[in-house]
């Protein structure tokens, strides 16, 4: 099901392309992107799928447990063996423990800010906002590198871009390259219903309108007159992008999760995060270069409007055991299995990470706060050797005792695997200080 404007419809059955706005829409998904046009074929990663664990999951209570640390650090979770000899994770991740041969775990990440918004920007761009302004998101860099195509080259799935009560996280998109490199946003419900926020501007849009071009054009003209110039510019761009999706049968097909078998949909589970990851797999299959699934502030929220994903300042252990980890465990396990069975894992780089970790010492409310000095990530696919652990943290999970792996190194490795060479990164003026995580490759 794909929602257009404020109504749901099965677009694969209900929209006649000839009756829709067509001017300029049958071209590939240009977006005004300068066409670098370097083919992805040479890259190990034809696509990148980033599972963005916004809010910052606790590393000690998931993938870097410290069962021998003092009680004030280790928490109440037991550890379980993984399929990788000698590697243990906590008991709330049984499915991913059984699939440790499909991914590599990094336990020695370090970020450079304790604030979500700033750390998130660093995590997704490799840099703080400084002299040259806001660096582009890794997805924006890859989108620019790959150039125009039928589907948007950088798609973000979730209820909007990551934010907290203070405001949005700046590093979500194009940064100083401009909004044209922002991700194209889609939302996916727990039922697998996909909607495109940029079309929500047209509140009155109905299937009948779509089939009546004259009426639609009249409404669009009316809307034009009501918008000022800046809004219109933005609206035109987003409308163009959204309508291109609707007029492309392949794009519509990629966005239609209901085409999946019931078995596949069940495997991911009836949660918005689960169906979002299934949608991400469909987009990868449709050769979208960069897909980011946001475990956003509104995914399975306990306190609506203010649930910051994995930001578990209170009830850390209960939320992880009851909600977050069961959902994450099921969905990411299903995602890895699905990509593997379809032969997509070899050409898709899957990364799951947040912006930082959480305080090794349990706080005064039996939970954990922000901790940028040490955190984890999972890497799978794209020819990486799985079943490894890279990096090590100290006995309390407070600091890496091996070389810290920074966001710039994450971005550099991600782009290198995707075919964005050091020369091209230099031309783009991104990630000047990053180096590839050699142990991964």
């Amino acid at each position, binding site marked *: 099901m794909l929602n257009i404007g404020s109504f749901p419809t099965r677009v694969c059955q209900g929209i006649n392309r000839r009756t829709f706005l067509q001017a300029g829409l049958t071209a590939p998904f240009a977006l005004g992107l300068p066409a670098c046009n370097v083919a992805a074929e040479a890259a190990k990663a034809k696509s990148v799928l980033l599972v963005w664990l916004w809010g910052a999951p606790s590393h000690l209570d998931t993938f870097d447990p410290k069962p021998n640390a003092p009680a004030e650090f280790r928490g*109440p979770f037991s550890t379980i063996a993984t399929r990788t000899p000698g590697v243990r994770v906590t008991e709330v991740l049984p499915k991913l423990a059984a699939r440790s041969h499909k991914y590599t775990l990094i336990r020695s990440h370090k970020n450079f800010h304790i604030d979500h918004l700033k750390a998130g920007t660093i995590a997704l761009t490799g840099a703080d906002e400084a002299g040259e302004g806001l660096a582009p998101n890794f997805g924006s860099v890859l989108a620019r590198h790959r150039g125009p195509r039928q589907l948007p080259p950088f798609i973000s799935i979730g209820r909007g871009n990551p934010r907290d*009560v203070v405001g949005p996280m700046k590093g979500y998109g194009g940064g100083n390259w401009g909004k044209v490199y922002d991700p194209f946003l889609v939302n996916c419900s727990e039922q697998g219903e996909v909607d495109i926020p940029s079309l929500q501007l047209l509140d009155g849009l109905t299937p009948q309108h779509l089939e009546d071009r004259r009426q639609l054009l009249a409404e669009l003209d009316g809307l034009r007159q009501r918008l000022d110039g800046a809004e219109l510019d933005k609206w035109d761009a987003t409308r163009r992008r959204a309508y291109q999706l609707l007029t492309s049968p392949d794009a519509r097909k990629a966005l239609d999760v209901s085409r999946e078998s019931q078995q596949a949909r*069940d*495997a991911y589970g*009836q949660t918005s995060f689960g169906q979002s990851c299934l949608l991400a797999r469909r987009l990868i299959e449709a050769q979208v270069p960069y897909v980011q699934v946001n475990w956003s502030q509104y995914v399975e929220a306990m306190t609506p409007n203010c649930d910051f994903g994995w930001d578990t300042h*209170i009830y850390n252990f*209960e939320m992880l055991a*009851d909600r977050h980890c069961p959902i994450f465990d099921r969905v990411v396990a299903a995602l890895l299995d699905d990509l593997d069975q379809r032969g997509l894992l070899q050409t898709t780089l899957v990364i799951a990470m947040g912006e930082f970790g959480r305080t090794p010492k349990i706080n005064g409310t039996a*939970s954990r706060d922000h901790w940028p000095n040490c955190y984890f990530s999972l890497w799978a696919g794209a020819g990486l050797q799985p079943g490894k652990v890279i990096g090590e943290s100290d006995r309390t999970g407070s600091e890496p005792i091996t070389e810290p792996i920074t966001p710039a190194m994450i971005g550099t490795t991600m782009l290198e695997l995707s075919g964005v060479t050091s020369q091209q990164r230099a031309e783009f003026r991104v990630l000047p200080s990053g180096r590839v995580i050699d142990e991964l490759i």
Partner: protein
Amino acid sequence: MQLTRDGKLKMDPVFIKNGEELVYTVQESPTQMSLMRLKLADGSSERLHPQALTSEFEAAFTPDGRYCAFVQSKGNLSLKLVIRDTQQNKEAVFDPGGGFQGMRRPTIAPDASRVVFSIPADGGQQLQSVNIAGQDRKPLTTSSINHWPTFSPDGQRLAFGSSRDGDYEIYVMDADGNNVRRLTKSPGIDQRPAWSPDGQRLAFVSNRDGNYEIYMMQADGSNVRRLIRNEERDDYPTWHPDGKRLVFVGERAGKSDLHWLDVGS
């Protein structure tokens, strides 16, 4: 037998009206958790509080149904306890304040004298109580993480989970917090004890065999047995007043629904 079929995330079912209805928490939308009331006679369900604008969850009732305690979200990871007198149509509130504060899992004494809940305090997560007016806050535990309190049917004891011995185990204590006794001893998580109506048995949830499943034991911790074998999650058991059946939240094919489970007498 399956009681619901929408597949939405569900939690904390509890019987009311002598077993004729169930109240449970459902993730109604990505931004709203709601209390639902399910009538067993016709399978119809509706919101317990149709006008609720914010998330409400984890309802508990007195046996006569007069008082209902539940958790209400204030936003920004802050929660308050609402105690509703359904006869007088009045509400009492216990609000611990803003800034990452809040309680979970209330349970009401059968005589409505106290409401016990779990709340971050004293460097851990403690069981505390207030009176039915939401006042006179008293501590029951003082260390580690303590959770899932539930009054025995006679109101004399509380079963609960605690990390005091390392991982989560189930304990029982007198209603005043004294005389704590450990009931389970196994690796992994043992949680969410639920008293049988006669007070002789406890259903609970454990992942000791690899995933969350429903178990049962005598009230002294003996005769532990697993009630369900399923590759997916089974959680949140609650007893029907007849003492012969449980309702639990079972995940089946990725969908979360309420199911019956016969347990015998």
